[in-house]
């Protein structure tokens, strides 16, 4: 148990002394995770909207795929992306392997199904007449969909937070495509894994706590925004 306490103390020490490495790792974590979340939202929101409102053959299978995709094992995604980015792979020429860009790609692949699945169900929960009423006021399809998204912003923010949570916490893909290189692709999760494998359990827990702290900060802001839009009861 004292390990947990030591971890807390260590986390405070790292934050208080402004340990440079820790800051760099934290900053990279935020950059990569937010970047991946942004990409996932850009791709996933339109897809999720289509699944929710359009009728096309294979809609259910796509949705089942997205739901399954929420369970995409990061290691497997990491392996796929790695194989693609290998020098011998189809995208090898870009030299992206073991760069933050590669991590963003892999993590976006992990987060996109989460966004698609949760956006789809969020929009399906909105009154089906909502979009009709928007069109009945002269909305073009694009504007009607934007209005629908605005109406569902409570669950949409939850989807964004779930996506962020999925990427900020995962280690398999970050490790595999990033390589956990010091000063280049080491993020808080991979640093925690390394500390663990070195037997520095307190340090590992400290990294974990710092990770939770920044995730909490991000989510507290989003939650306040989200709940401000909740129906007053």
């Amino acid at each position, binding site marked *: 148990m004292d390990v947990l306490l030591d971890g807390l103390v260590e986390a405070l020490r790292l934050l208080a002394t402004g340990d440079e490495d820790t800051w760099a790792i934290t900053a990279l974590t935020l950059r990569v995770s937010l970047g991946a979340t942004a990409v996932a939202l850009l791709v996933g929101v339109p897809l999720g909207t289509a699944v929710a409102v359009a009728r096309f053959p294979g809609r259910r299978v796509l949705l089942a795929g997205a739901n399954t995709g929420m369970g995409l094992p990061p290691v497997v995604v990491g392996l796929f992306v*790695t194989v693609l980015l290998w*020098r011998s792979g189809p995208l090898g020429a870009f030299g992206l392997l073991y760069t933050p860009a590669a991590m963003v790609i892999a993590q976006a692949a992990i987060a996109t199904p989460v966004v698609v699945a949760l956006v789809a169900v969020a929009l399906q929960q909105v009154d089906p007449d909502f979009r009709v009423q928007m069109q009945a006021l002269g909305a073009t399809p694009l504007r009607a969909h934007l209005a629908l998204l605005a109406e569902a912003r409570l669950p949409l923010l939850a989807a964004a937070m779930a996506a962020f949570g999925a990427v900020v916490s995962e280690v398999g893909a970050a490790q595999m495509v990033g*390589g956990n*290189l*010091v000063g280049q692709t080491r993020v808080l999760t*991979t640093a925690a894994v*390394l500390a663990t*494998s*070195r*037997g520095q359990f307190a340090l590992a827990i400290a990294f974990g706590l710092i990770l939770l702290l920044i995730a909490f900060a991000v989510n507290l802001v989003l939650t306040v925004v989200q709940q401000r839009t909740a129906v007053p009861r």
Partner: protein
Amino acid sequence: GAAPSAERSLILATTTSTQDSGLLDELLPAFTAATGWQVRTVAVGSGQAIELGRRGEADVLLVHSPAAEEELVAEGTAGQRRLVMHNDFVLLGPAADPAGIRGVTAVEAVARIAAARAVFVSRGDDSGTNAAEDGLWSAAGVAPGGTWYQETGQGMGETLRVASELGGYTLSDRATHLAQRDTLALEVLGEGDPGLLNVYHVIEMTTRAGDRVQPDGAAAFAGWIVSAPAQELIGGFGTAEFGQPLFTADAGRNPATPGG
């Protein structure tokens, strides 16, 4: 000793290399068959394995990080430490060998790599391999650092992969390299140097490390792995698949000069 009981199980903390090479898959069933002890293997970095021993979370260790091991033994929580086996490290690099280390001694090789600022990929995870590498740097009088020196903080397999993709040098145990060489663009550029021995010891933990440590289990495992049947298994392991053994059985030899 006591009659073996089917329910008894012990925790073995060991390095990833013994698991990744497949050695344990061969040894443990034989051990269980011989003694009745079930084994829960926790394959982790040497640092973590030793730390688990220190905390009494493991009953017996099979590790290859001599300096850290001696430190642990000196603390007094461990029981016997016995030599089990060794294999050797190899220096790997791209076929082009930009730093020109082919054929030179290990210490000279790392000095040349540093001088050429050629990419070197280190495990950087306090593992036994990492410790051996550190030994080479200090012998060469180099404090590695800078953009050419990359630390992955990961296991051997992953580190080999990174070195291959980055076209860099690295230090690896022979077993892992042999197992993965087909998928890697790395060549053996340095081997056979006495500085490149990778020695495994078995360490029994005692109740001084923690109340729940099972010294009898530890003794059973340590005693078995240095016994003749186990040593035979170790000495033959890998021949079928790679045409050469991956480890050399060392039990009973002089701890200072295994293989010698």
